[in-house]
Structure formats: structure tokens, C-alpha cells
């Protein structure tokens, strides 16, 4: 089961081997550029794959904020007449990060610290993005079709226990 379906209101279906391929690309990117942490994010704020310092992982707060900031800045760029949004870069004293578009739906988050230079990260990120795009694009077209639920997600594949929903304490 290794497919990817992308459509608002539908299911993004990440198979184990696809996720591992994403992760291998990110591991290589971290190694080549010396970024401390890299993550492939989906526009709704979900981490699809990541690599690097596990201390920079969280329950999803960073991904949600990053996806929101990315979408907001992209919208600002479009409103100001720039349809070719190339991402954003934060130059902090202690830590720096950049968000770069991979496809209209995915973005790459790269976190790094001095003395790693943005120019180096940018070059390495461009290479990683090409590989990530290849992985996304080489998936069978049928797997990327706009279906209500991706292949392999049929009735009964995932059963759920309503009793296990949330209780207040």
C-alpha cells in the first residue's frame, strides 16, 4: 500500500515506503547542508516526514504555525502582484529557518544555526526539492486521482471505537 492522494476534503495516503523515501531525501539534505532539522509539511499543517534533531519535533504546533505563515505570506505576495512566491527565510540570532515550496500542496521546512549559511541551505534545498517532487510525481496517476478516500482505504480497513473518544478530566 503505497500511494498518495491529494485533494481538499479527501485523504492523503502516505505508504510506509514512500514516507521512508521522503525521509531518506531529508536525511541526505540534513547531511549535505548541515541543517539541524528538516521536515516535509503538508498545507493543512501535518508533518509527512522529517529528519534531523528530534528535539525540534513537537506535537504539530510548529508545523501548523509554519504552514499558516507560509500560506499567509504567499497570499500577501499574490495580493501585492507577485505570483512567483519562493518561500520565506527567518534570520534569527540563535536559529534560522526557511520554508520553501515543494509543490502547491507541500513545503520544506529547514532549521539551521550559524555558521551554516543560507546560501548553502538554499542550494541543497533545491536539490532535495527536486528529489521530493520526483517522488510525488512518480506515483501512479491513478493513485493521485481525486477520490474521496485513497486506494486501500475502503470500508473496514480502519475500524474505530467511538468509546475511545475524548473525555474531560
Amino acid at each position, binding site marked *: 500500500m503505497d500511494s498518495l492522494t491529494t485533494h481538499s476534503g479527501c485523504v492523503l495516503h502516505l505508504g510506509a515506503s514512500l514516507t521512508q523515501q521522503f525521509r531518506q531525501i531529508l536525511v541526505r539534505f540534513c547531511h549535505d547542508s548541515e541543517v539541524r532539522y528538516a521536515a516535509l509539511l503538508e498545507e493543512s499543517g501535518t508533518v509527512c516526514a522529517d529528519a534531523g534533531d528530534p528535539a525540534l519535533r513537537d506535537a504539530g504546533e510548529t508545523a501548523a504555525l509554519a504552514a499558516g505563515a507560509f500560506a499567509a505570506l504567499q497570499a500577501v505576495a499574490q495580493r501585492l502582484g507577485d505570483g512567483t512566491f519562493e518561500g520565506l527565510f527567518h534570520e534569527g540570532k540563535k536559529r534560522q529557518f526557511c520554508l520553501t515550496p515543494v509543490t502547491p500542496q507541500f513545503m520544506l521546512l529547514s532549521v539551521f544555526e550559524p555558521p551554516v549559511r543560507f546560501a548553502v541551505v538554499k542550494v541543497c534545498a533545491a536539490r532535495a526539492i527536486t528529489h521530493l517532487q520526483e517522488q510525488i510525481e512518480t506515483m501512479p496517476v491513478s493513485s493521485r486521482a481525486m477520490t474521496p*478516500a485513497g486506494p486501500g482505504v475502503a470500508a473496514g480497513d*480502519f475500524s474505530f*471505537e467511538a468509546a475511545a473518544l475524548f473525555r474531560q478530566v
Partner: protein
Amino acid sequence: MAVINHDTREVSFKLVYCGTPMGGKTTNLSYIHSRIGADQRGDLVALATANDRTLFFDFLPVHTMVINGYKTKFLLYTVPGQVCYNATRQMVLRGADGVVFVADSQLDRMGENLTAWQGMQRNLEDNGTPFASLPAILQFNKRDLANPAPVSYMEYLLNAGPRRLPVFEAAATTGHNVFATLNALAQEVLQRFHHGNPRAATAPQPASA
């Protein structure tokens, strides 16, 4: 959009709380954050103005093992209610798997309820997500205040279309029906996911907290 990651054995859903300005969307998330086990939630992130009005969104990740063998994450968002933040609302609604519409029960807020209700549907349509196919719950909040609007009147205003949504009368400040609202939406989203058909989901019945 639900995201299934077979490698990490996680399924994620995005649930968005929309509604009337100052209607109690952030209060819903704050209450959930304060009353859910720490092992079932992340941090509550609030992007607000100096006077505590939501500027961009609030965010709270919660999770459970409701799907067998998979950690099930619900990413809870609120949108800013104020009219001027329409573009932001549309952005936050992108990829939503379900929505809660939080309406204000005070009689003088009915006009704003209606405006926000229509605006939410327009935002969803503009995002390519027909409201008719999206799991949704209506929450009539602030029932604890004096002289709330009759439920039948609010139903007439907001829930008289061909699709009748489950309704919860709530008081988010005290937590009344806050968890019931969350669980009802989660259940509807899971049913839709389970059946793999947006229109196959059966609306859950309102339940007590």
C-alpha cells in the same frame, strides 16, 4: 484533508471551529485544553491581538487511539471571527475535514450569526470544499446568559436547509457540551473516513457531556 501515515501509524484530521465574532470559539479550545489529559494533547497556540482577539488562528492538537492500531490526531483550529479577517478564515479552512459552527445565543447577535454562517459556507465553496459534503456540527453557545434566543428561532435561522445538522446547546465558559460537540464532530469525521464516502456518513446524535 485526512492524512494517513503508515510509517508512523498515525491518522490526522483537521477540525475547524468557525462562527460569530466573540462567539466562544477560542473558549471552546481553551476549555478542551484545560480539561483533557496532558498525555492526549499538545500545546494550545493562540495568535491573538493585545486584547485577546484571535488574529490568525488558535491551534490545539489532541489525540487518541480511536482507530485500531493507529494514533488518531485531531488538529483543532479556530478562525478569527472579525469580518475584516475573511482572507485568513478562508486560508485556515483549507483542507478542513470537519467544522463546528459556534453561534452566539444572545438575541442581538442573530444578524452576526447569519453573516458568519453564510461567510463560512462561501469560504468553503471558494476552497473547493462544498459545505454540503463536509461533516459539520452547530453549537449554540452562551446558553447560560440571560434571555438567550429560543433554540427554535436559531434553528430556523441557521439549520432550516435541506441538510439538518446536529445541534448542541452549550456554555463554553463552564464547559457544558464542549466535549460533546468535539466528540460528535470527531465521530462524524471518522464515520465518513471509515466509509470512504463523504455522503455515506451518518450524523451522530447529540449527546450529553
